[in-house]
């Protein structure tokens, strides 16, 4: 005997599916759950923070869709990036730079404009590579010390590492070893 096919949407002996009532039930349940969840999540400090972080970043992205990589780096890293960009622009790729020490970047006697990790050699190399960096503390041991071509100046410090006098001293800059 031929078996009668049962379609899943209309099983035998059951009334036809009322899609409208099911969708209404879903809508109501989804709305209730969404509302309860939203209210509960509002009471946790973390979730609103996470959501606001995403939306505020989206606003920023939409307001500045065509920023260059340099501009974005300046936005995120501030003076630290601006200083490194300046060193990069002012030196050739094969430069060997006598790079300031941590104390030069953050002098104890005055406030520093730097907020990130600019004093960290590897951090700075991300923006200065392939230039070589030598720290003042490495001058006695580094094989690159005799090859130094430039001296970086920061917060008015570093002029004493040059063999010649400088007339118009700037707060930040880079000068060749030989005038």
């Amino acid at each position, binding site marked *: 005997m031929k078996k009668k096919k049962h379609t899943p949407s209309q099983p035998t002996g059951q009334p036809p599916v009322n899609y409208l009532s099911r969708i209404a039930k*879903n809508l109501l349940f989804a709305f209730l759950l969404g509302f309860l969840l939203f209210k509960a999540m509002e009471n946790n400090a973390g979730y609103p923070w996470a959501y606001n972080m995403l939306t505020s970043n989206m606003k920023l992205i939409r307001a500045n869709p065509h920023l260059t990589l340099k501009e974005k*780096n300046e936005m995120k890293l501030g003076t630290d990036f601006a200083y490194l960009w300046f060193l990069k622009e002012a030196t050739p790729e094969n430069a060997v730079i006598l790079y300031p020490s941590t104390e030069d970047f953050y002098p104890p006697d005055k406030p520093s404009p730097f907020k990130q990790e600019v004093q960290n050699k590897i951090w700075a190399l*991300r923006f200065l590579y392939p230039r070589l960096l030598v720290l003042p503390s490495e001058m006695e041991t580094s*094989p690159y010390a005799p090859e130094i071509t430039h001296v970086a100046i920061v917060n008015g410090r570093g002029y004493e590492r040059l063999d010649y006098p400088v007339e118009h001293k700037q707060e930040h800059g880079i000068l060749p070893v030989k005038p």
Partner: protein
Amino acid sequence: MLYVGIFLTFILGLAFVHCLSADFSPVEKIGLAFPLGIGLLVVLMLLADQVGIPLRPMPLLLGEALLLTTLLLFLYGRRRNRPKEISLPSLKNTNLVWLLFIIAVVCLEYMNFSKCLYFPPSDRDSLAGFETIGYIVAQEHTLKGLSIFNVAYMPGIHSAASYITYAPLVQLSYAYVYALGAETSKIIPALMYLFFLIAFYAATSRAAGKTGAAIATFFVLLTPEMLAFSSLSMTNVIHAIFASLGVIYMALWFREREKKDLILCGALLGINTLCRTEGIVFTAAVLLLLFIDAFRRKGYKGFLQSALLALVPLLGWTLYTKINGLEAESIAITHPFLDTEKAATILTHLWQLYTNTTLYGWSFAVFLLAFLVNLWFLIQRKDSLSVLLAIALSSVFYLFIIYQIDYKWDSIENVLLYSVKRFLFCFIPMVWYFSVSNHASALLFRKLEQFLRIDQAR
């Protein structure tokens, strides 16, 4: 060339998943393809670097193409073993609650993905480590011979906790995209997180149904601290992707006893140790559970295959570092000792982290609640015992590791506040997986799905 490289990596991962088993669902395959592709690519880069092949775009792309051809030939060789039934994603049995959460996940991830791609790497740990290493590898075409690994140039390179010892996955994947012409490396964390969400949803839906999986994915995505870090260039979230998926596939193996899950679990845990070496705690916990299971069932073949995949990457990386002198002063205390003050500091900080709902949202609270609700089934049927044991054992192993470390490069408080805080990301997907897939929750979601079903009669 960048898009070709990314696509090739995706296809490579897809072919690899297909080689493991054709029976994974299409959504699972798509979700796993990119992370596994990156894992294979990094292994390839390490091998190439060891034998002296420069890490330039052409050798890398050719190597990937060659590996892809090998995998395709393997697939062609077993073409008769077709999947039993190709189950394409369908909108059948859906409900508006599922849809609501999926829409929320898509919208949130769109914002997160955009943020990740828009901003260049700026966090301290990336720029003072992985990001810069990756950038310079792309310029110098080598990892082992990197100029910044030269002690004459970097006198502190062999000091405790130096970046020379960092496991290679993140920096080599960054090197790959830089070598192919990317302006920044952010395409890697952006795509990794996107594909992770897909893979997590697909894996969880096998145990909890699609509504439970959508809710869990939503909460994993919106976990505040993890969400913030997912768009940075750091290793922690990428590590959490491999570690958590490895543990979840172990749980699926115990649940469904399908060998494909066991093998995939091994592969994911193997790559997990290439992200961060402390990922060994997950490998050790899972292999211990798998060994006990194999011992009880007197069947070791699957366990050995999985163990091989889980351990070979770490052993290979250790060998690579030994051969090439990429070592630093040890920070491990190798003898047993008792320091109650140190133990108390660790436990106090960990307790503060686990109970911090600002950092991790409701993740651990919901986990505790789900554990209590499911306690009856846990006692009666050992329900979800494997995932609970994996979480507990890996936590204990991790506690042991942080206790045995000599904090000579930083204070223990700083390490607990920053490193450990991020390490807990690994547990977030695991606890959400458990919270929605245990017997009591799965029953609830099944009832809910039946109640809300639109297209079929109940």
